[in-house]
């Protein structure tokens, strides 16, 4: 069944009309027929009202005919709405189908295709260019049928009224039919040029945005602007020409359509004066003739939509008309379960333009053997790995995977047997868990991640995380989560137990790295608001963001003599921060240590200018709130641009006692005060375990903290729970909330979890630190050796000793192959790579 289906790029535009819902189209036709009738009826009524009712003074007849008239108008309007609705449904359905089919097709296209295709182009093709085609499919049956029928109905009516006049007024249409297509052809030509130009333009935009680092780095704004501006200018001219032709189609049509009443007035008027035509008939004729113009206009508009849609549709489909290199699933059998042997015979790969990337490669690996590919960059090692992984289709020779030719295998066969970790792995938006399960889920082919029994268990996932060394990071994500009161009460009470345990065992040892919450001490790593309230708010009006506009709190600040000092501190923070960060872009690195958020910078910049001119007590209430907000956020341990005034410290400590006293009396439920027996819902799990805040981001200290926390969590049997929470961490679009190393570890973890028979790693550990790299290498040496056949492209030569075979590549060929010891003893290419050229002389 799959085979007979035409690929989407080969389908014609009208084929979408055929494939749309037959029932809807039939209903549409029926409605149209009724409408046509409902449109002609008022004309006849009009004539009868004048000729019969008014002329003979028949009131009853007048009411009757007017009633018919009204009913016809109401029905016509209602049906018109229904018709548009139906057309809309049909059109949007076709558009959605087109978008889906084309997207599904594009994803299967070979990697080579995407080398020359910018993402922007794909986006504009899918989103913009197809829209008119969908629009056309919706109109394709309804509009022409309705218009032509109405046209004929009116024409027939006109002929019935007066054949002579009808002949005269209809005579103009053949002229229009000769002229319009010629103009439209020109418009189509311009339209084609416009589609192509828009395509290069969106490609250019895509390129500039993805290369924005390079543009900033080189300050090459002008070069890029010039390129872009030039294209826009060209597009501008093309669009003008295109639109001019489109308008001229309309104008010519208008002109001729307006000519016809002129003819009718002349001839009809003459006949009426001569008494050879009654007045009612002339009125009816004139209004019928006016109405004939509507369906005609619709027909012309439809013609233009059709022309525009077919140009865009064809151009889009032509562009993506390439054949996927491999079938997705085998047609007539179950996917293979292959054994992990690899046989490469006389393999060659010619890239486009006749460049020989691989030439005469021969090698063979038994199941479970491990091969390292080394060599200078550009020697073809990655290409070889990618050919084995079916990412590139080799042009000569053979690759046999478990005895089967790789070129003939379907994608499904490949993903069932191979795990591929690329040099720059991609992380998709979603949680850590989604990303870890990515390979397994696509192997199983299920959309629902959780439900399937065949999916890896939590233990399996944790093991994969541990193997790749991202476990601690995930644990950290878990620890940095803020629990929600309604969902996690059980966990919260367990964490309080962990808190005691932690304090007992590690409190002293880690005292240098953690600032514990203590009622009598000022907390340099918490903000001023937390220092004052010394608790976490349970109501919205007392949260940090609202505190500066909370009347109760403001009165308290006055009472505690804090208002002026805090405003002065806020002003100083504002001045200093704006001075340092005022001209910097809103990047995370710059704002990590700033009390002003990147999105507030402009606001505070203006406030800083006002501060220079105005005394504090003359500031507007809004400005005062802004300053107070800054001051309440101030964390002396992080925001280093301003020192903490010691007088303020004492005032705040006094204020803390005062606040507790008064809020306990006035609004007892508003805060949960920091006490060793209470979970603090506004703080992270980690801060709750500490019952304090970390003072450091130094990796050594963090490692020591992690070790102690892990130990305590294991003893309290909570480690898995926290890691599970951590696995729900959202990695951001393209995984931008993870570091490069974390992304690479995640990519390895998802392939390890799949446990494929053949593992291909293309410099998979290049972004990792030494320790992680060593950990993964030792896993490959022990756990995976004999289990999975491994082909690893390796850049660093100190980790290849344990491989069964090492192939040194040079200029697309294998220069030498053997074990590490043999090759080093031979003092050939590997020796040269390791010890450098000079030393081998």
């Amino acid at each position: 069944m799959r085979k007979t289906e035409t690929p989407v790029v080969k389908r014609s535009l009208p084929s979408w009309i055929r494939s749309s819902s037959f029932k809807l189209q039939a209903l549409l036709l029926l409605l149209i027929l009724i409408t046509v009738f409902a449109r002609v009826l008022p004309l006849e009524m009009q004539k009868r009202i004048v000729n019969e009712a008014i002329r003979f003074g028949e009131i009853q007849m007048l009411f009757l005919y007017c009633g018919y008239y009204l009913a016809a108008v109401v029905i016509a309007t209602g049906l018109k709405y229904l018709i548009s609705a139906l057309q809309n449904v049909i059109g949007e359905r076709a558009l959605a189908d087109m978008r889906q089919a084309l997207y599904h097709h594009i994803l299967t296209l070979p990697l080579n295709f995407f080398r020359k295709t910018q993402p922007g182009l794909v986006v504009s093709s899918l989103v913009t260019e197809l829209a008119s085609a969908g629009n056309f499919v919706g109109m394709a049956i309804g509009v022409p049928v309705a218009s032509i029928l109405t046209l004929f109905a009116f024409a027939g009516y006109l002929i019935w009224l007066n054949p002579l006049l009808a002949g005269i007024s209809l005579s103009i249409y053949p002229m229009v039919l000769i002229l319009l297509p010629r103009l439209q052809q020109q418009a189509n030509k311009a339209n084609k040029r416009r589609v192509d130009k828009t395509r290069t333009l969106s490609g250019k935009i895509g390129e500039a945005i993805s290369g924005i680092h390079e543009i900033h780095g080189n300050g090459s704004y002008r070069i890029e602007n010039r390129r872009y501006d030039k294209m826009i200018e060209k597009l501008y001219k093309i669009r003008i020409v295109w639109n001019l032709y489109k308008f001229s189609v309309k104008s010519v049509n208008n002109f001729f359509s307006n000519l016809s009443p002129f003819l009718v007035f002349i001839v009809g008027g003459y006949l009426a004066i001569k008494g050879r035509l009654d007045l009612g008939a002339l009125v009816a004729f004139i209004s019928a003739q006016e109405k004939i113009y509507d369906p005609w206009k619709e027909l012309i508009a439809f013609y233009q939509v059709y022309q525009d849609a077919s140009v865009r549709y064809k151009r889009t489909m032509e562009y993506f008309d390439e054949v996927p290199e491999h079938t997705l699933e085998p047609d007539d059998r179950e996917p293979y379960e292959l054994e992990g042997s690899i046989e490469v015979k006389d393999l060659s790969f010619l890239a486009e333009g006749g460049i020989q990337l691989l030439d005469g490669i021969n090698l063979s690996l038994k199941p479970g053997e491990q091969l390292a590919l080394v060599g200078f960059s550009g020697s073809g090692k990655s290409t070889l790995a990618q050919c084995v992984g079916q990412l590139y289709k080799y042009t000569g020779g053979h690759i046999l995977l478990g005895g089967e030719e790789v070129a003939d295998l379907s994608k499904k066969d490949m993903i069932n047997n191979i795990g591929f970790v690329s040099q720059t792995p991609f992380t998709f938006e979603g949680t850590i868990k989604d990303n870890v399960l990515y390979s397994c889920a696509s192997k199983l082919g299920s959309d629902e991640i959780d439900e399937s029994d065949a999916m890896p268990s939590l233990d399996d996932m944790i093991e994969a995380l541990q193997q790749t060394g991202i476990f601690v990071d995930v644990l950290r994500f878990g620890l940095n989560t803020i629990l929600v009161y309604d969902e996690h009460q059980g966990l919260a009470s367990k964490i309080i137990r962990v808190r005691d345990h932690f304090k007992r065992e590690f409190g002293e040892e880690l005292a240098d790295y953690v600032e514990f919450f203590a009622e009598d001490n000022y907390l340099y790593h918490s903000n001023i608001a937390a220092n004052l309230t010394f608790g976490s708010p349970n109501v919205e009006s007392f949260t940090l963001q609202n505190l500066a506009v909370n009347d109760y709190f403001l009165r308290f600040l006055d009472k505690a003599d804090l208002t002026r000092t805090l405003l002065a501190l806020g002003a100083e923070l504002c001045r200093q921060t704006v001075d340092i960060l005022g001209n910097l872009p809103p990047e995370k690195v710059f704002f990590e240590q700033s009390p002003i958020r990147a999105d507030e910078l402009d606001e505070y910049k203006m406030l800083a200018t006002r501060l220079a001119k105005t005394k504090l007590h003359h500031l507007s209430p809004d400005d005062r709130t802004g300053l107070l907000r800054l001051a309440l956020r101030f964390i002396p341990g992080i925001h280093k641009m301003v020192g903490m005034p010691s007088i303020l410290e004492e005032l705040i400590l006094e204020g803390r006692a005062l606040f507790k006293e008064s809020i306990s009396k006035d609004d007892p439920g508003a805060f949960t005060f920091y006490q060793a027996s209470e979970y603090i819902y506004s703080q992270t799990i980690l801060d709750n375990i500490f019952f304090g805040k970390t003072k450091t981001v130094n990796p050594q200290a963090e490692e020591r903290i992690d070790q102690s926390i892990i130990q305590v969590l294991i003893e309290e049997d909570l480690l898995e729970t926290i890691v599970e929470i951590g696995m729900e961490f959202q990695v951001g679009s393209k995984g931008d909330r993870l570091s490069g190393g974390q992304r690479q570890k995640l990519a390895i973890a998802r392939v390890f979890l799949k446990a494929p028979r053949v593992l291909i790693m293309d410099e998979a550990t290049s972004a990792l630190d030494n320790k992680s790299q060593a950990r993964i290498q030792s896993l490959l040496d022990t756990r995976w050796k004999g289990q999975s056949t491994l082909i690893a492209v390796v850049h660093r030569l100190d980790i290849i000793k344990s491989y069964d075979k090492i192939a040194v590549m040079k200029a697309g060929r294998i220069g030498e192959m053997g074990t590490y010891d043999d090759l080093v003893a031979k003092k050939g290419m590997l020796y040269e790579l390791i010890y450098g050229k000079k030393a081998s002389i």
Partner: protein
Amino acid sequence: MDFFSALSLQALKVFAYLFTREIFKPGDYLFHQDDNDGNAFHILSGIAEVARKDESGEFCLGKYGEGEFLGGLALLGDMRRLFSLKALTDMTCLVMTREKFTKAIEQFPDLMPRVLETMVDRIRSWEERLFLDKDGLCDTCRKKVGVSLI
């Protein structure tokens, strides 16, 4: 820190702001041999030891203390450490990461040539000192010098 001497006042403020203060305890590593950490350290107090480990064991290459600025080269680009830097006493340092440095220098593009100049000058004068100190250089070592030729 002559590494930053080339900076304008505004740039200097930004760089000063981006440094973070860290404490290290005796035995802590500021960085490890073979790591590509990309950090630079200005020692405010305490003493650190530079050491290198190979098949024959670990040997100390020197000590650094208050006021020294180490690791500036690592800010400029990917570099795997040839040595480890280990705290011998309690230490307080100002730390700059490569990420922060790169992002900040992007904002002041005209500074890059001057930073490079400072770097080149330091490499040259470092090797020059090596030659002036004739007694400290053995004959085999003499044949291998030439860092400033790169």
